[in-house]
């Protein structure tokens, strides 16, 4: 169904564009309703047939992926959920993808958060992603959720020397010392990678300034599209890499699928949202090209 829809629609669109090109070669302009139809098809077909495109990761995204990928198995990765429900549609695909990737690589996963409004989101990710897709992983051994603590960068400043000053237990009330995963963990400095997923304050920037830089721990993350340009100055010296907006999420998801056949069936909201976008962008560009060909040929003929 999927592939059939994809093939039919792409053939339709490509055929239509070729037809337009041929028409343009004779110097004729395209009527507006035809453009509208192409645009409508370009957006609705991916929606209806769930068509997706594999995104090739840009270097800044690939850097994050490679970092997680090439850490030795069993490395400790911390993911911080620094966003609230309103931002979730844009950045949640990122934290989900990070979790999947880390668990597939058998890294030890530490989840926490700096946003009061995002407290339930970590627990939700544990239920939705970890327990359902990785039933063999044991809480407290392979992953742990230590939850939210108030204090923004103050929290970071404390846990960069000692987790236990702030966190006595995980979210389920189990003593950190009783958890195997925390056996020889003292502070953030014992982590091999810090990943912050966020869209405001505190977020990626605070993790760089208060944890990654002073603790000399590799830091990476993802942020909402609006704040992404403000993060570029930190890359690549202070920030391993960055996922910007839904496009960044889509690139990471694609990369994950490419390397891990077991994720073939995983939901990829980022990639799904990019489907209509990509086709629409390609369509606009195709029209620009066709339009210019028609324009130049028309001019040539006139002169």
């Amino acid at each position, binding site marked *: 169904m999927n592939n059939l829809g994809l093939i039919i629609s792409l053939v339709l669109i490509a055929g239509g564009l070729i037809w337009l090109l041929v028409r343009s070669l004779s110097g004729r302009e*395209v009527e507006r309703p035809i453009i509208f139809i192409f645009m409508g098809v370009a957006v609705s077909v991916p929606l209806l047939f769930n068509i997706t495109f594999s995104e090739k990761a840009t270097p800044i995204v690939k850097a994050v992926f490679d970092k997680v990928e090439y850490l030795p198995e069993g490395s400790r990765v911390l993911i911080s959920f620094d966003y609230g429900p309103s931002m979730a549609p844009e950045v949640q695909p990122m934290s989900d993808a990070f979790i999947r990737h880390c668990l597939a690589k058998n890294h030890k996963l530490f989840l926490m958060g700096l946003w009061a409004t995002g407290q339930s989101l970590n627990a939700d990710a544990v239920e939705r992603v970890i327990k359902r897709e990785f039933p063999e992983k044991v809480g407290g051994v392979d992953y742990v959720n230590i939850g939210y603590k108030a204090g923004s960068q103050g929290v970071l400043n404390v846990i960069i020397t000692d987790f236990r000053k702030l966190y006595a237990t995980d979210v389920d009330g189990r003593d950190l010392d009783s958890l195997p995963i925390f056996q020889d963990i003292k502070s953030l400095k014992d982590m091999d990678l810090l990943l912050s997923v966020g869209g405001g304050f505190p977020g990626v920037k605070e993790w760089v300034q208060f944890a990654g830089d002073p603790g000399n721990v590799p830091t990476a993350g993802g942020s909402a599209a609006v704040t992404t340009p403000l993060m570029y100055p930190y890359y690549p010296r202070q920030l391993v890499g960055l996922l910007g907006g839904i496009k960044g999420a889509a690139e990471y998801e694609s990369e994950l699928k490419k390397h891990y056949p077991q994720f073939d069936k995983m939901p990829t909201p980022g990639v799904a949202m990019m489907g209509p976008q990509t086709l629409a962008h390609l369509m606009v560009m195709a029209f620009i090209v*066709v339009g210019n060909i028609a324009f130049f040929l028309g001019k040539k003929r006139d002169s």
Partner: protein
Amino acid sequence: MKRRIPLLITFVVGSVLILSVFFPPAESWGEDFSIFFDIIAVFAFFLGGGNLVRIHGKKLFTRKSDWGFSVVTLAGFFVMLLAGLFKVGNPAGMAGDVTAAGSFFQMLYEWIFNPLGASMYALLAFYVASASYRAFRAKNVDATILLVAAFIILLGRTPLGMYATAWIPDSFSILQIPNLAIWIMTSPNMAGQRAIMIGIALGVVSMSLRLILGVERTYLGVDSE
């Protein structure tokens, strides 16, 4: 008198508001005046609504072409007006918020106003396509620059841009489309925006001054007196 007093009012109100910014005891005046403005605007609603009813009523009674559609406008207007002024079906009665969920007013908003507005807005996706087809032509140097900048940014937002330029070595990575797109957004785009904003700010200051000094007065219709 008909001409002097309005100019005097503009002058006094304008200069008082400018000076109030510098004196903390008067700091809140600007805010108060904005509230006054909103209240005056409510009176203006009578003028607006009256004008709407008059125009469409005239079409209806003179049986101008398309008078039937004027009936639709008037019906929609009065139904909505009555639903809002009397808070029909409001769960909290007259004390409830006019836009409270469950009221007839809010229902009309949710199922007619909203879909119509969202669809109008969504038309933009189509017009963006037709405008780029029509306008992005390499007619001259300026238009070509416009076209190329738009094209690079568009490419940078699709996987195609990445695939096409991934072979470029790291030491020339600025030439990779996604990087180039970011650079355009943060450098020349920023410069252009800033130049426009500075210009606008100066224009506003100068225009405001002309208004306060009474040099610019077309809006009062006083040219003729």
